[in-house]
């Protein structure tokens, strides 16, 4: 009885939290069916804004490019960020460690305009042509620190005796990394990847400064279109993107559903072994 009641409160809290998180999104989707212009008075139901997208080749291209950029840049950022976290973890001197961490966080604290304009100067000095490559490099660059911040705590929580035991058992460096460290930091890496992905999708200012030769991302397009008021076509596009991501996330979850259990068993086994 008691636990049931507690579950009730717990679930209620979560439901409210989710409702709040999704409220603006449902609001956007709701008005994507509005026949009148804005997001305040709902006139009639219409599919017109969805048809607009279909005929707007430019918008479709930009959307595809934006996702391509986000998937790729966050993948590379996760790889570099994770190796960075491993490196920082192995630094023994605490002062050096804080120094590197401080440097790591600089891109997180710097406002986008500063990052964007300094990257722009940097790329022009190096003679890198502005376009997809420069945007990709910048997105990787500003996503790395967040990956480090997500992975590092996992490493710090890791019981260092794992590594010692593995070393005693004669495992080489690569085997330790693959067999012991990576499974433990996987959640951190996934979290880092998601954050990097988010940063990449959301960024406007940095992308604006370093893009060129016709390459554009969705946020640059949305921000400059906002001058004429947000068109409901953008709402419709967001609704579609949202549905697509939802399907993607669900799909990913149900494909990989069996592995977490296996993983947990592995870890229990490891822990038992060590004890």
């Amino acid at each position, binding site marked *: 009885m008691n636990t049931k009641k507690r579950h009730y409160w717990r679930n209620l809290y979560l439901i409210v939290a989710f409702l709040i998180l999704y409220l603006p999104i449902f609001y956007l989707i709701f008005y994507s069916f509005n026949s009148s212009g804005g997001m305040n008075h709902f006139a009639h139901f219409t599919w017109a804004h969805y048809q607009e997208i279909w005929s707007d080749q430019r918008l479709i291209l930009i959307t595809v490019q934006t996702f*391509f950029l986000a998937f790729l840049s966050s*993948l590379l950022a996760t790889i570099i960020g994770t190796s960075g976290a491993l490196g920082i973890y192995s630094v023994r001197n605490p002062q050096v460690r804080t120094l590197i961490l401080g440097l790591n966080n600089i891109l997180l604290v710097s406002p986008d305009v500063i990052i964007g304009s300094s990257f722009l100067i940097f790329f*022009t000095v190096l003679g890198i042509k502005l376009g997809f490559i420069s945007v990709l490099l910048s997105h990787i660059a500003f996503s790395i620190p967040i990956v480090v911040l997500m992975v590092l705590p996992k490493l710090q929580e890791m019981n260092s005796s794992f590594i010692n035991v593995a070393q005693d058992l004669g495992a080489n460096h690569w085997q330790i990394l693959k067999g012991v460290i990576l*499974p433990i930091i996987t959640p951190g*890496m996934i979290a880092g990847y998601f954050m990097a992905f988010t940063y990449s999708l959301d960024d406007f200012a940095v992308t604006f*400064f370093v893009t060129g030769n016709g390459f554009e991302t969705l946020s640059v397009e949305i921000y400059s279109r906002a*001058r004429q008021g947000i068109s409901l076509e953008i709402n419709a596009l967001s609704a579609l993107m949202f549905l697509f991501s939802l399907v993607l996330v669900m799909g990913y979850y149900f494909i990989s559903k069996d592995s977490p259990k296996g993983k947990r068993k592995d870890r229990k086994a490891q822990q038992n072994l060590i004890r």
Partner: protein
Amino acid sequence: MKKINIMFFGIILICLTLFIISFELEKDSSSGESDKTVNIFNWGDYIDPKLITKFEKQTGYKVSYETFDSNEAMYTKIKQGGTAYDIAIPSDYTIKKMIDNHLLLPIDHSKLKGLGNIDSKFLNLPFDPGNKYSLPYFWGTLGIIYNDKYVKASEVKHWDDLWNPRFKNSIMLIDGAREVMGLTLNSQGKSVNDTNVKDLQAAYEKLKKLSPNVKAILADEIKVYMAQDEAPLAVSYSGEAMEMMDNNKHLHYIIPEEGSNIWFDNMVIPRTAKNIKGAYAFLNFMLEPKNAAQNAEYVAYATPNKAAKKMLPKSMQDDKVMYPTNKTISHLEVYDALSQKNLSKYNDLFLQFKMH
């Protein structure tokens, strides 16, 4: 490890798919060698997309279209180099600044067709004498928008009316130092380009008294707010006002007769342009009355092309918001490009006002 492998290869697979899709899409739209492509750098949603297609069909050039959201950001990018835009569309004071910094190529008038279509009152303006570097694209004014549900027409005729104590917490101002300081200077009978330190200080003192009436200081989103009745009064541009009035019948736009700002967005050829021939083709294309009219109808801003204006629907032509009378226009001033120091002065005073 298994999980990581699944994810890793899954992401690679997604990337490949997206890359192929974007490659296919790009094939039949834009990009190619530089002598076949015209790079256009414009405000978002500031051209009828059908015109781009028409231009491509007519001339055989491919258009690569990029957008910006502020003059200053665009200026930074062009100044820095890196990309070669063949056409850009900055506003008046930025054009002056770009000319002064040698960022523009002079326009050879002998290569233009249909320059005579442009209304002569929009040519030869102080920011670009003789239109050596720029051709008008759209123009507009700065004024007051009021909601007749809360404010009577007789109550807002002058800038000074904004200081009326009745309008406590009810004005939305445009977030621009030139605009807000300028209207205050106008209300004191001064020019919007005044740089006299004493005048500016006096304007700031007067502006401070406006604080209780100011509800918010915003940018593009003013039109969303005004359309949903969030405030009875706003100071913004005519183009924005048109947009709001489309969505809310109770809104009206006036230009105070003591003076205000008139602005221009002109087409220019940046110094870094690669495809000069294509740039001229685009200029000539936009000078054609039919195209300019189609663009004006789509974007709903005022066209400087008098032949195009005649082709617009009657209701649009007679719209006093978009096309104020010559008498009103004679009272309006274009913003000069201020020196760095004076601009800082304006901005510092405005920042202090905002913090007030």
